[in-house]
């Protein structure tokens, strides 16, 4: 088996093995370390010696051995006595040999809820999700987020400490908390996706494929929660967005806006899967924000050219989105759609409502959208000033370059 195939295998097994260990021993912190060590051992041994006949059992055995090695040290033993007394769930004592059980989707779900616990800062939720559920090594996560490995390692350790301090358990949240907790899981997966999606081509070579990891985790979540419309919506949104990958950057790594992309380069399979997912989900689920955003992406995806875009339908969908998830960023995108239907001045009027909002006033996206609409309205001087304001405010190099080019084009004409 090739190394990439082994890597895929290990990432699939990571949450399953961790679930088995935590159910048996009830100590997330120590189990997570032990599983990580077992994954590293497998990554070294399997390519050379071949994949064992029962790879999941192999990982459970090695991780358990690491765990007991850890326990043997004097310091750890003292910790364990306290930890076991406090934390070990009663069912751990009566559970059947866990590595004989089929992989449990509930384990993945419990792990996701644990990693996206509200006691953690978002950066901690993201890092821990990638390691404990995504099966990535600390070094891979550090490379993906362009920080030293020591920094990422500490961030993960701190996140695990906070989970312990918060007294979080390896259980599903109560029905009262469930929606909110699931919302943070979805947000973390979407953040991981966006981090990978927005990486420019040059440096993407050196980064773990976070986009693929996020899609993989969203697929896994969908497998576990097939009846949740928002999970389907998030996966659809990711697929429909990722479908643009080949078309969204030019030969020199410059950003190509949606309207100017070569649509023949879109990934048709990803589009078809995303459209089918969201269309199906909307037939039985109340429309949540991810489903509506996916539906908007689907309308774009179904237009053979930018000119064929059904902007009326997009405006209608943004109205739904503004109702289910009111947010100034939604208004911002809505303004573009409104401009395409009722003219740029109508879009600009909608944007004017955002100037008083602290969340968007001075934000580069507001200036960028305003610049675009002023450009459409033929107001070149104002458009140029707005493009330059957006270029000064963004913290993204490709965006700054794109906005400066737009401004320069207006000056040149």
């Amino acid at each position: 088996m090739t190394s990439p195939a082994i890597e895929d295998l290990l990432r699939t097994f990571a949450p399953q093995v961790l679930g088995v260990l935590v159910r048996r021993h009830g100590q997330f912190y120590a189990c997570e370390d032990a599983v990580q060590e077992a994954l590293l051992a497998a990554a070294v041994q399997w390519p050379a010696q071949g994949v064992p006949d029962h790879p999941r059992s192999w990982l459970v055995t090695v991780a358990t051995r690491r765990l007991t090695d850890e326990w043997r040290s004097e310091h750890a033993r003292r910790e364990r006595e306290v930890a076991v007394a406090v934390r070990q769930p009663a069912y751990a004592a009566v559970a059947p040999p866990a590595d004989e059980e089929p992989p449990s989707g509930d384990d993945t779900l419990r792990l996701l809820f644990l990693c996206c616990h509200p006691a953690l800062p978002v950066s901690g939720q993201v890092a821990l999700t990638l390691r404990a559920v995504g099966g990535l090594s600390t070094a891979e996560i550090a490379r993906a987020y362009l920080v030293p490995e020591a920094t990422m390692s500490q961030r993960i350790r701190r996140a695990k400490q906070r989970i312990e301090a918060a007294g979080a358990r390896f259980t599903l949240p109560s029905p009262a908390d469930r929606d909110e907790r699931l919302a943070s899981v979805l947000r973390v997966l979407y953040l991981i996706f966006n981090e990978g999606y927005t990486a420019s081509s040059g440096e993407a070579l050196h980064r773990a494929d976070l986009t693929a990891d996020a899609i993989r985790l969203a697929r896994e979540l969908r497998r576990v929660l097939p009846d949740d419309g928002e999970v389907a919506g998030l996966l659809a949104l990711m697929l429909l967005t990722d479908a643009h990958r080949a078309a969204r950057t030019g030969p020199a790594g410059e950003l190509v806006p949606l309207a100017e992309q070569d649509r023949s380069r879109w990934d048709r399979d990803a589009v078809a899967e995303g459209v089918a997912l969201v269309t199906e989900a909307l037939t039985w689920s109340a429309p949540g924000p991810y489903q509506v955003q996916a539906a908007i992406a689907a309308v774009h995806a179904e237009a053979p050219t930018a000119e064929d875009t059904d902007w009326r339908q997009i405006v209608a969908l943004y109205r739904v989105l503004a109702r289910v998830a009111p947010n100034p960023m939604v208004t911002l995108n809505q303004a573009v759609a409104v401009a395409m239907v009722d003219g740029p001045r109508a879009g600009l009027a909608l944007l004017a409502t955002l100037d008083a909002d602290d969340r968007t006033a001075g934000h580069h996206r507001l200036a960028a959208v305003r610049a675009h609409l002023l450009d459409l309205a033929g107001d070149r001087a104002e458009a140029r000033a707005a493009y330059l304001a957006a270029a000064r405010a963004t913290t993204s190099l490709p965006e700054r370059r794109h906005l400066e080019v737009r401004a320069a084009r207006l000056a040149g004409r």
Partner: protein
Amino acid sequence: MKYMLLIWNRPGFVEELSEAERTAIFGEVDEIMKELTESGELVGGEALAHPSQARTARPAAGGGAEITDGPFMESKEQFAGYLTVDCETLERAAEIAARWPDVRHGFGVLEVRAVMEQAGTEM
């Protein structure tokens, strides 16, 4: 989001401090560094040598470059080092800057600048 905290201070101010003051200041720096390391926010940082050791390259009058001894700017405060942190908000980065001894004891200022990302969103 990554931020660079640029430390500007008066060169040689440390020479004028007593042993105890110096120890106290380094202790404060150690404490902040320890906190940032433990929180997973510290990305890196360097202290720079005295500006008298600097060279400045600038465009020469007849084209090409000329290299001169000393720093770029003749100002009371000089660029002395930097710290890169990865934190949730600009406010958090500014709070770290405000606690730096140069600011607390009036030896200099810290400038907080967002680091540009290599990533961009579809526009």
